[in-house]
């Protein structure tokens, strides 16, 4: 019992469950089967969490090295813009092959953006927040240039599938997010990458002297984060079948960082938790849905969010937990001393 309570992820999970239960009551269909696939609020939440999960995964890796990536939102916009621009020019928007190729190109472009960030941070040695701020500002401008400030619409079936399609009764977007999560988990926990990342984040100097090629690893992490943000951008734009360079991924960096922190990864770097980030991302998305479902007036949205975040960070605080739950185990010896 106490060991469950002590787990950092207990409270986010508990709050998530509470929010889901609320949604169970407010929604008419929580999970049902319709047209041969799953449908309902829960599925919507999971499907819509996909971009945040993807961005959060990349952010987790970046943060584990002690960095931060503010440019993810802009990278999302660029990737979406590139993809939609190219798809728009296809003769047959519904042919799968070219669309896949275009998706590949968009992700490659995003990884290039990540490479840029990584180079600034690891080679030139600029503080991550300012290095990625450059792309955050300029990147959205680039996306706007690509789309000429307008929303580019596409009518590509295969493209829309990555956001709203279903495969084996499950939403494709969710499957992509799950696949990425599994991939990152394998990448970090089945290879030595996780250890090396935590080491670089824990102490860059000590890591360097232990012979870890911190530069290469740091660059790689930003590249991966860029690629994942690009993928998130594709899902975002496929969801609305258009590239909206202004709103795509706007302010998502804050949500992503919040998801990472809720998930128990410290912003100073070091130990990280992939599962925690995914939980955090789903929690944030659920919160957004709950606000609408419960009918909280839009001007009070932020207050509601504040209450949840405050509750969460207080519950997660080890000291508060000790003060509240520590009483459960009587400490006679200590009582004597204080007396």
């Amino acid at each position, binding site marked *: 019992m106490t060991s469950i309570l002590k787990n950092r992820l207990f409270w986010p999970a508990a709050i998530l469950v509470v929010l889901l239960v609320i949604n169970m009551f407010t929604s008419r269909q929580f999970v049902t089967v319709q047209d041969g696939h799953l449908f309902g609020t829960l599925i919507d939440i999971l499907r819509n969490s996909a971009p945040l999960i993807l961005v959060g995964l990349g952010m987790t890796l970046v943060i584990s090295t002690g960095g931060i990536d*503010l440019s993810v939102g802009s990278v999302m916009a660029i990737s979406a813009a590139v993809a939609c621009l190219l798809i728009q020019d296809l003769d047959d928007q519904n042919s799968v092959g070219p669309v896949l190729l275009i998706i590949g190109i968009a992700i490659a472009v995003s990884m290039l953006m990540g490479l840029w960030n990584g180079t*600034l941070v690891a080679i*030139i*040695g*600029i*503080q991550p*927040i*300012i*290095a990625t*701020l*450059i*792309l955050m*500002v*300029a*990147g*959205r*401008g*680039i996306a*706007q*240039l690509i789309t000429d*400030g307008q929303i580019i619409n596409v009518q590509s079936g295969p493209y829309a599938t990555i956001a709203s399609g279903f495969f084996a009764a499950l939403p494709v977007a969710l499957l992509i997010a799950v696949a990425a999560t599994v991939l990152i988990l394998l990448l970090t926990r089945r290879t030595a990458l996780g250890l090396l990342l935590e080491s670089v984040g824990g102490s860059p100097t000590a890591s360097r002297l232990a012979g870890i090629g911190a530069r290469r690893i740091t660059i790689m992490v930003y590249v991966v984060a860029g690629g994942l943000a690009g993928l998130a951008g594709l899902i975002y734009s496929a969801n609305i079948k258009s590239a909206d360079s202004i709103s795509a991924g706007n302010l998502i960096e*804050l949500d992503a*960082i*919040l998801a990472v*922190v*809720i998930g128990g990864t*410290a*912003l*100073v770097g070091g130990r990280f938790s992939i599962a925690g980030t995914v939980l955090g991302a789903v929690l944030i998305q659920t919160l957004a849905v709950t606000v609408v479902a419960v009918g909280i007036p839009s*001007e*009070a*949205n*932020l*207050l*509601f*969010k*504040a209450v949840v*975040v*405050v509750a969460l*960070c*207080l519950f*997660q*605080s*080890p*000291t*508060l937990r000790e003060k509240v739950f520590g009483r459960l185990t009587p400490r006679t010896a200590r009582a004597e001393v204080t007396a």
Partner: protein
Amino acid sequence: MTPVTDKGTPTNPRRRVYRPNAKYVPIIATLSLLVIMYSSGVANYENFGDPSVFVNLFRDNAVLLVVAVGMTFVILTGGIDLSVGAVISLTTVLTATLLKGGWPPLVVLPAVLILGALIGAGQGAVIHFFKVEPFIATLAGLFLARGTALTINEQSIPIRDDMWKAISEYRIVLAEGVVTKPIAIVAMLAVLIAAVTLAWTRFGRNVYAIGGNADSALLMGLPVGRTKIAVYTLSGFCAALGGVLFSINSTSGWALQGNGLELDAIAACVIGGVLLTGGSGYVWGTLLGVLVTGLIQTIINFQGDLNSAWTRIIVGVLLFAFIVLQRLVTRKAR
């Protein structure tokens, strides 16, 4: 036997020669780059050389400057304060609402400043006592402050109070054709006071010590908790002061005011050479950082033919050029 003393130069003199200015290199580099940037503006744009362009930088960025000063303290301890923009909005909304409700301005002013400080103190307390990450604690503060502002009033509220208007319209003539406003003076005073505090007081030095190594600072017997809470209080106060300046500058209150200002403030600090990991940097650097961002904005305004997309790209490019040059210069000098 080779005389040891001539080639194996005694270590002390050499260190004395370059170490002390080594720590000012970033500031000097930033300053020179700023001068270069300004000169190229003068060379390229008509009227750019007008002294009022430079003087106006202080007026136009007064709010950012005040907020960034508070942020500098927080960042020096290794923390971060995301709530400043929201505190600004809450302050402007409260100020406007209270003044509209007929409260005397001399009551409103201290009230909102104290409120800002209290919000900061609350965040600091949560960070210190409950060991909550500053990022998440102040993000909650952001939601709370802006949420409150929005629930008080979604719409923008004009301020018709005479004192506010008088201050807003008051001009200080510095020279023929060069005027500035009280808010700029307030902002410069804030910088001055902060610089003195950081350099000459125990509190200031504790801030650096905590940023350098909080565990060590604790073991050295420094009041870590008190100092941490104090810097967030200070940052909250500065944000509220920024809010007041904002409400003076725009004679209105609005819940969406100061959106994203926290990032600008953090960026200004970092551009000015303050290390986000804490323990290193100067308020003067922050001042330069604010001037750099302000100058970039001015150049964009003078360019005058950039649409939104190009505005962003040019801001990015200028920022990039500046940061990379700064980095290369400081690295060489080391």
